[in-house]
């Protein structure tokens, strides 16, 4: 019997797991995919919002601002890349100025610090690649960018370090109440738990509605993105949003923590909860929109496009708390933007509720710090030389574009909750994430995976499940 089972190993599930791992509790995270960070957490803007966008007095606003404030320390504690690069909301039409003013005022009300309205001149000095016809902008110095993969993996690894268990490829089929506990029927067995956390992203309504008569409904809202090569990474240095205006919500243009440029997202409500396909209209729409705020966008430098699904709940508010009529079943549902920004605060909030409900006590031996993968590129030449002398696999470059060595890939596989697929390696090391999009390193990474996992090459997958990369040996 577990004290807590968390459904979903996305950023929210992992944040809750990490916070719960502070207490003397038996915690299990179940995930339908083969790895952490495979749903909404994997495909989003990778932005830590300042908090001016969320409605006044909403939970969204509160947790966004708090999550933003926590991010710096958390990123140091758990060793994942985060940068406070600041964000700009660019206003292109005089008639949209009131909307800019409203954003400013809302931000101040929400507790966002350092907000300022910039003149056209100040804006263009700060970001020379903004279109000349911009009339002004809201500047939020506390806005930031993060690596959502590393953040989620860091939270998960730290939770695991502190005793939380993870089960992958474990889809939950059914939840029933038994006397003093919940029973979870899954693809790989049934589990009992005193308490359940529903962190199932676009599926959160499915599980909530299994146990509560007060139904909720989540709509997957698709967002498509284009990622640009690192040569375009400094096209803007801050995250550039557009004032929501007559053309809708607009798209953002932002550098990523790894030095690429990211443009997106679109917003289309769809039915299919696995509908992460990109579309012709979506891509052309977002590139066109981005060019209304940013000039000379180097379209030839796009290296990939992708889509993610936000878990949009009709009330457009985070649903965090015990589901009505379902004792000890806690929702973290409707976690759409600013969900990534809010995740650390959601973790604290949900874990606090569960601590109180189950009367959990803090551990004495909680390990707050987690060390990320060794990054040879961050070492000095001398240190790197010493590293390769000691561990020659760090001298063998596998991914040419991102300069990732065999040593890093091996570590990614061997870590607790290590990579099991090409995408798993990619999210942990960036091997295959560069301009050739794994053209060169894919066969070599597959070989390392097969060797490290003692698996047959034919069983190596791109992303788990049926995503096998090869069909047979040559006859």
């Amino acid at each position: 019997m577990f004290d807590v089972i968390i459904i979903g190993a996305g950023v929210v599930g992992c944040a809750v797991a990490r916070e719960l791992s502070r207490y003397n509790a038996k915690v299990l995270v179940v995930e339908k995919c083969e790895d952490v960070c495979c749903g909404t957490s994997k495909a989003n803007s990778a932005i830590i919002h300042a908090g001016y966008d969320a409605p006044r007095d909403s939970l969204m606003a509160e947790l966004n601002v708090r999550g933003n404030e926590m991010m710096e320390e958390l990123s140091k504690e758990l060793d994942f890349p985060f940068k406070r690069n600041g964000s700009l909301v660019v206003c292109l039409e005089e008639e949209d100025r009131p909307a800019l003013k409203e954003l400013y005022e809302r931000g101040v009300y929400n507790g966002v610090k350092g907000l300022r309205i910039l003149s056209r001149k100040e804006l263009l000095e700060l970001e020379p690649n903004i279109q000349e016809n911009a009339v002004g902008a809201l500047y939020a110095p506390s806005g930031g960018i993060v690596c959502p993969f590393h953040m989620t993996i860091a939270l998960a690894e730290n939770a695991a370090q502190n005793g939380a268990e993870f089960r992958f490829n474990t889809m939950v089929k059914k939840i029933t109440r038994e006397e003093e506990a919940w029973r979870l029927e899954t693809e790989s067995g049934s589990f009992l738990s005193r308490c359940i956390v529903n962190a199932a992203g676009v599926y959160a309504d499915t599980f909530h509605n299994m146990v509560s008569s007060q139904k909720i409904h989540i709509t997957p809202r698709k967002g498509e993105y284009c990622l640009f090569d690192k040569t375009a990474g400094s096209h803007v240095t801050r995250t550039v949003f557009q004032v929501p205006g007559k053309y809708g919500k607009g798209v953002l243009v932002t550098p990523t923590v790894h030095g690429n440029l990211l443009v997106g997202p679109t917003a289309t409500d769809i039915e299919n909860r696995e509908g992460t396909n990109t579309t012709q209209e979506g891509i052309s729409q977002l590139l066109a929109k981005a060019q209304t705020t940013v000039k000379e966008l180097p379209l030839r430098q796009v290296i990939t496009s992708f889509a993610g699904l936000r878990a949009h709940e009709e009330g457009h508010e985070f649903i965090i708390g015990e589901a009505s009529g379902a004792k000890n079943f806690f929702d973290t549902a409707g976690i759409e933007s600013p969900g990534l920004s809010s995740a650390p605060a959601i973790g604290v909030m949900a874990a606090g509720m569960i601590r109180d409900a189950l009367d959990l006590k803090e551990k004495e031996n909680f390990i707050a710090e987690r060390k990320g993968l060794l990054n040879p590129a961050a070492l000095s030449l001398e240190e790197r030389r010493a590293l390769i002398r000691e561990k020659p696999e760090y001298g063998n470059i596998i991914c040419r574009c991102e300069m990732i060595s065999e040593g890093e890939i091996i570590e990614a596989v061997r870590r607790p909750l290590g990579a099991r697929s090409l995408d798993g390696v990619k999210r942990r090391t960036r091997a295959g994430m560069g301009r050739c999009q794994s053209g060169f390193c894919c066969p070599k990474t597959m070989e390392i995976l097969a060797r490290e996992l003692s698996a047959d090459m034919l069983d190596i997958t791109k992303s788990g499940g049926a995503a096998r990369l090869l069909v047979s040996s040559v006859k």
Partner: protein
Amino acid sequence: MKAYDLVIIGGGPAGLAAAAAARENGIESILILERDRELGGILNQCIHNGFGLHTFQEELTGPEYAGRFIAMVEELGIEYRLHTMVIDISPDKKVIAMSREEGLFEIQAKAVILAMGCRERSRGALNIPGYRPAGVYSAGTAQRLVNMEGYMPGKEVVILGSGDIGLIMARRMTLEGAKVKAVAELMPYSGGLKRNIVQCLDDFGIPLKLSHTVVDIDGRERLKGVTLAKVDEKGKPMPGTEEYYSCDSLLLSVGLIPENELSRGMGVEISQITSGPVVNESLETSIEGVFACGNVLHVHDLVDFVSEEAKAAGRSAASYIKGINKVSDGRVIRLVPEGGVRYIVPSSICLERMENKLTVRFRVGAVYKKAAIAVYYDGKLAARKKRLIMAPGEMEEICLEKERLLKEENLKNIVICIEEEKAQEGMG
């Protein structure tokens, strides 16, 4: 720090030929740095024949062709390192490289030849919509898996792009028992060599669908199928022409890009059109003593011309190291692509340093039938060469003679352009 007269980045066909030529021109201290497990570069996975007709007057396979140059390099006793990745080159030619065996090390070179080759354009660069399942490979990756690693990436195949690697892989996959359902090409003409269309598609009854592209990729985990559609003159898919092909793999042969990250890092000027360094008659880049040849300079169709170009780079590097052929008056003639010519390599000529004959290579931007290559010296027609057919997929060349150029008083520009015959047939 180790020191060499000449460091060659890349041990593929370009690097090997350049090394041999430099040694034959008197350079003793040469080092080739190769990132893969053997010399020969991409030729090692090109196990089909058709290589070497120009160089050796016989038909060789890729590994055989590479083998001849590897043997030459071995006989000449030229040093090389395998599994060695160059991570940085400074403008003053300090090379930082690393390998398992030697760790991280620095080398000071007097001259550098860039011969890193090219990489394939990926799906992302084309913005092909749809899911991102396993089973979507660039044709070269598939070629490596089949020919070098011994694995089949799929058994029902659609290929996008009729560049040479795509055509070759259509045949290769068929011979290995896969069913190649179609080769789709965005342009109204193939980007590959005519002989490859005949030998790799026609001979096996594989349909080549010109003016078609992939508009959707189906399958969340493993590829299930792709949707092809016809495109209009602007390359835009035409609604209503969609056709679904069930398949488990999609191979992309949609263009090659010279790999110039190191060149850019050291500050070499790069051409927007070729994506390779801008070079002069000596194949010297904008940094003195740094030369480029082969696919890192501009993408070639035939390895024979890579070898030829690389030899020229090797000779130039040798002259540079020996300090001969220094420029005194610096008279420079510019080579200007016009009307129908996309680019010319090299882009300038210093008459003093020019060898007696200089091969100038270029590509046309469209298919021309019964047209002529015209060469103008400062506006004056100097040569006109009729060609039955020219296509972007086949590199063109002309030869310039030093003697002739010297006769031109104060020559500034040489223009190369395509002139169409008046009564040209329709392209159909």
